[in-house]
């Protein structure tokens, strides 16, 4: 009886998993087969890379890749530095206005830059940064989430380690660099993965502030490319879609454990 219910559950779990993979599997099917087979599933259908070649030649995807990589790097680098400094201050210093400032940081946790598009657009254009990669990155550069995570981590650093470093004559920065940063490694990885996947996938804000091929990230490039008006072949659109997803998907498959654990870590705190 119990065994039965067990295998029924296993079966159900597998069905759900297959259902969950179906959309992805389908996009791969249609990307790797000629367009006649886009909606016909025939196991003998010939495989082809034509769709990728077409997509690649019809829009500047190479440039879009470069833009996205630059964007993600810029955001992450900025976030890590800024959040580390801020978290250090919050976790290890006692100073006037700490609680107020921390509350001000937390404001960003609920009112994300994503919803402030109208005014942030004004700010960015006031800074004369429209249509640049920094324009996409800046609003996200100070991450309340990152500060919050690192602060928790830094708080749990044992006091003895700090004292030991102090005795050796390390300055405030020295302590931060030699004690806190190494101990925060897992948090950094966790935050980094979450941040990279967020900004690789971000769309609405980049759509608003970019105008040209030179600054468009992949997501915006894909949206512009796939507009149904152009009637681009369905298989070619899926090929472009697969190209957009591929790097993250690949990274995810390779470092599955780290990804899951990172998202977990980032979430529980």
């Amino acid at each position: 009886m119990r065994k039965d219910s067990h295998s029924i559950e296993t079966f159900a779990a597998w069905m759900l998993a297959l259902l969950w993979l179906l959309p992805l599997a389908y996009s791969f099917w249609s990307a790797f087969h000629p367009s006649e087979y886009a909606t016909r599933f025939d196991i003998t259908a010939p495989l082809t890379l034509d769709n990728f070649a077409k997509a690649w030649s019809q829009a500047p995807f190479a440039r879009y890749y470069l833009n996205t990589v630059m964007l993600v790097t810029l955001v992450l680098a900025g976030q890590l530095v800024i959040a580390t400094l801020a978290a250090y201050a919050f976790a290890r210093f006692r100073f006037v206005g700490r609680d107020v400032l921390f509350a001000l940081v937390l404001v960003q946790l609920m009112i994300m830059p994503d919803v402030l598009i109208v005014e942030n657009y004004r700010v960015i254009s006031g800074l004369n940064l429209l249509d640049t990669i920094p324009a996409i990155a800046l609003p996200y550069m100070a991450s309340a989430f990152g500060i919050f995570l690192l602060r928790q981590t830094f708080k749990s650093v044992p006091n003895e380690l700090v004292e030991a470093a102090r005795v050796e004559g390390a300055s405030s920065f020295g302590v931060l660099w030699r004690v806190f940063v190494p101990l925060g490694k897992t948090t950094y990885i966790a935050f980094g993965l979450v941040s990279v996947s967020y900004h690789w996938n971000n769309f609405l804000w980049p759509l608003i502030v970019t105008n040209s091929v030179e600054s468009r990230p992949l997501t915006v490039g894909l949206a512009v490319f796939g507009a149904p008006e152009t009637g681009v072949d369905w298989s070619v659109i899926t090929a472009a879609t697969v190209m957009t997803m591929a790097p993250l998907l690949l990274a995810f498959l390779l470092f599955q454990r780290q990804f899951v654990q990172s998202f977990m870590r980032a979430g529980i705190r």
Partner: protein
Amino acid sequence: MRFKTKALLTAGFMTIAGLGATAAQAVDLTMYYPVAVGGPVTKIIDDVVQRFQKENPDIKIEAVYAGNYTDTMTKAMTAMKGGQPPQLSVLFSTDLFTLMDEKAIVPIDELAGADGQEWLKSFYPAFMENGQVDGKTWSVPFQRSTIVLYYNKDAFKEAGLDPEKPPTTWAEMAEMSKKLVKRDASGNVTRWGVEIPSTGYGYWMLQALAIENGQKLMNEAGNKTFFNENKTVEALRYWVDLSAKDGVMPKGAVEWGTLRTDFLEGKTAMMWHTTGNLTAVKEGAKFNFGVAMLPAKEQRGSPTGGGNFYVFKSASPDQQKAAVKFIRWATAPERAAEWSIKTGYVAVTPAAYETETMKAYVKDFPQAVVARDQLKHAVAELSVHDNGRIYKIVNDAVQAAVTGTQTPQEALESAQKQSERVLSRYK
């Protein structure tokens, strides 16, 4: 202090992104353009720009594809508000009032030089209508179209209809559609009679129907609309009844973007679409197809449609001059003919139809001139102040009606009420 921080940040990031000042001798132009039809349009435009640059090495044009018309207008305006306007753009011919209200553009006749007036007279007058206000020409026709009826001749034969006699009236279209609908054994429709797209360009289709019913949708000054007139309501009712009563059109919103594929896949025997799609249909059709003028109620008719060249006010005199040079080059008869052949858009000057290339093409493919011939029945496309907003209001009304959420009367009453609210500022 605060300003300094910003300036510093700016400077810092400018270097990071490697955006050094671009020192160039040549005149640099940025041009946004939309794509609303099938085929390798971006490639065609790139090619046009390349060839122009070869002939004019002192001018560099960066052509930026920014989506459909609405997206492109959004981009152009966003860039302008952000202080980086393009120097020229292809935008809806009907965005004129909006662009004028935003003080974004300059009249072109003043830039065109001594023979400018003559040049501007060489275009089809129907295409110039949307571009002329207060005796000035603010835009030059480029990718212009009318709506035509595409029909599947093979399907006509199969249904016992004469493939050389497309419908000429509303009643005929409804009747023929009934014969063209095909069902499978279980009664599900496998082929519809006719499809009129209701997303994106629903206002355009509604305007076609209204014109055919003898009703204008707006006044010349662009500050009054006639959405709730009886004849407009009648026009929308006819459209809605094609699916609700006659059952010859699918229920719900019909996608503009995928309609061509529907037609090519044989899912519908007829479709209303822009002639700009003609070449893509020709390339993709595995059956014989015909192109006809839209059927009449009181009269034939279609609004013109599509995009014009605009020159932006903020561009330097040199840039403006270079922009006009490009526009003249791109609309010259040979190029206009070539563009028309590659896409299906109507060539913008009569002279283009006199070129040898065009004559040869039309001889083999007479469908190519239907849209041009329809010009004599054509009316300027709906164009008012705050155009984007009014389009959205009409599109919403059309969608509310075709999905059965509201009756045509209710939907259009509400559209009229909302439009009046928006337009009251421009009286």
